[in-house]
């Protein structure tokens, strides 16, 4: 078996041999992160054994609702996405930027040490691959780059997973971000589970992916196995939980900034910021300046932030976006419209997390549809009249 980057070559790994993949990753010095079951959800966490995966579990998701359920089979990846993506590993929720110490009449500043772990991500969905690529563009693609993100990103080994089912709130097909993993991975798995077979069809996406696979017992994938892998993707694509008409969406939203729908959703939105916490592309942060009791040393810490907070837009003794309406509008128009101007693509990958994890089930596909259906309506005017 040769280490080839050809997209034609596919390999089959038996479910029983999957542990070898995890061992190979560990031996190569990676800390493997993958789906685990915790607190009633599928959570990406450290794992070493195939037994740590949520075998036989699936999820049922809808607006404001997430439940785990038992499957009839023992699929290892038979669920959609959990509350958090890989963002918390690549773009840490909290980290020290620098420390300062008084020195004589002045002070000195020193960058904080950053020991970036070498991660291997197991089970990255197509939407998540796109989300990572989007964050690459934001944090590495401009004049200033984020060194902490770069350090974690460059070291990361990515084992993608082609979804075998669509979540109740998924719409990657609308966003053209899935369900097939196209690029941005070292290895991509498709889980085939039927009758007597439980195996993985594996695609190599990089040289190092191929090198790693060389340490795992596998054979060339047969025609039937390839067909089964295709069928999995096709079935998933056909059963999306939601749909978003992305055509002209950015322009639609930007010409409807005064649409009454914003007031309507503001009546429901709690500005709890859940959506920004679970969204795999949201990148906003803030900084905290800390001192110790002696006042001789200080530290600057960076932490995740959300545009839904009042402080986010604080200026001159007040907030530029004080109303819930303006904050919801900011989030949605940034994600679906101004992001395109800023970074060349939509900020949304159709993972549906914001819909699932919103306590009141606000659904941005529904909000976009409502605005599209009454494009051009202004507050104070009757709906439907021209």
């Amino acid at each position, binding site marked *: 078996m040769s280490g080839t980057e050809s997209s034609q070559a596919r390999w089959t790994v038996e479910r029983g041999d999957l542990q070898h993949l995890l061992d190979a990753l560990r031996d190569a010095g990676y800390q493997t992160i993958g789906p685990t079951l915790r607190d009633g959800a599928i959570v990406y966490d450290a794992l070493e054994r195939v037994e740590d995966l949520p075998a036989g579990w699936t999820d049922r998701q809808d607006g404001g609702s997430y439940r785990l359920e038992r499957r009839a089979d023992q699929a290892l990846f038979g669920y959609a996405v959990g509350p958090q993506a890989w963002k918390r590993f690549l773009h840490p929720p909290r980290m020290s930027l620098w420390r300062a110490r008084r020195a004589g009449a002045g002070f000195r*500043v020193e960058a904080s040490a950053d020991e970036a772990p070498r991660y291997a991500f197991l089970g990255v969905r197509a939407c998540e691959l796109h989300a990572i690529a989007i964050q690459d563009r934001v944090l590495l693609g401009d004049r200033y780059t984020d060194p902490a993100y770069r350090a974690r990103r460059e070291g990361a080994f990515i084992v993608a997973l082609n979804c075998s089912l669509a979540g109740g709130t998924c719409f990657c097909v609308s966003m053209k971000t899935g369900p097939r993993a196209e690029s941005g991975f070292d290895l991509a798995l498709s889980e085939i589970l039927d009758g007597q077979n439980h195996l993985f069809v594996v695609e190599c996406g990089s040289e190092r992916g191929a090198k790693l696979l060389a340490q795992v017992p596998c054979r060339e994938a047969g025609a039937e196995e390839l067909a089964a892998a295709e069928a999995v993707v096709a079935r998933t694509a056909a059963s999306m939980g939601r749909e978003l008409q992305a055509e002209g969406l950015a322009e639609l939203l930007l010409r409807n*900034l005064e649409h009454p729908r914003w007031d309507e959703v503001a009546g429901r939105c709690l500005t709890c910021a859940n959506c920004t916490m679970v969204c795999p592309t949201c990148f906003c942060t803030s900084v905290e300046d800390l001192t110790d009791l002696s*006042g001789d040393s200080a530290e600057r810490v960076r932490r995740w932030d959300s545009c839904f907070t009042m402080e986010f837009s604080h200026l001159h003794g007040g907030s530029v976006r004080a109303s819930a309406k303006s904050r919801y509008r900011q989030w949605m128009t940034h994600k679906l419209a101004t992001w395109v101007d800023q970074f060349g693509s939509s900020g949304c990958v159709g993972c549906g997390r914001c819909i699932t994890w919103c306590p009141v089930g606000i659904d941005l596909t529904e909000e976009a549809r409502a605005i599209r259906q009454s494009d051009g309506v202004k507050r104070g005017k009757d709906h439907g009249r021209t």
Partner: protein
Amino acid sequence: MIPEVVRVAATRRETADTWTLELEPPPGEDTWAYRPGQFNMLYAFGIGEVPISISGSARQGATLLHTVRAVGAVSSALTRLKRGDSVGVRGPFGSAWPVEEAAGSDVLIAAGGLGFAPVRPALYALLARRERYGKLILLYGSRRPEEILYRREIEALRRRLDVDIDVTVDHATGTWHGHVGVVTSLIRRVAFDPEHTVAMLCGPEVMMRFTVAALRDAGVTRENVYLSMERNMKCALGHCGHCQYGSDFVCKDGPVLRYDRIRERLAVREV
């Protein structure tokens, strides 16, 4: 990006709550490099960082000037700094006033309140190559006479014959004999060629909106009006998301933004 620690060379009180800090360059450097309109993030030890526009340089560029108004914890700490104290600096960041692009045109600068500080470097850049420009007009509106910034400099500029300066206040006090009224009322008093005028505006957003309207009424084109916008800032690198204003990040696409680009946003509240 970590702050560079520099020394305060001097401080000067401008008004009751506003001071100008004069900063020495970092160790090993002779001058500060920046473009008019840009800002630095200034760090007060242990308290925090705020964006402050560069308001000029002194001693042939050897020192840098920042005019700070005490409105919060960090800015108040900065205004309490004394000669010899240290301050952290990150920058310079942001876009610049169109000093080059305005060559060949009349230039009208309209500033309001503390907004005079970010545009002052542009004024000096224009004066340094005065022959390249047509008329040079400065309109400055302040709240009260005692809050007029850089008063002595304005008086010195008035003695020049090649700059038109008009100052007005919203509320007259004491012995003020100058203009009283909004800064927009100064526009119709001054003669300029609207089709060949570049306007640079800096001040509270509402003041800039009305000033743009008055300039547009007078015939200045959309592509020739520039505004310095302000939003909450944390990183100044385009990564924290706080300073977004529509599609733009004020820290890197701004703070100086051309009117035609932001025209629609300016009309919407809470953007």
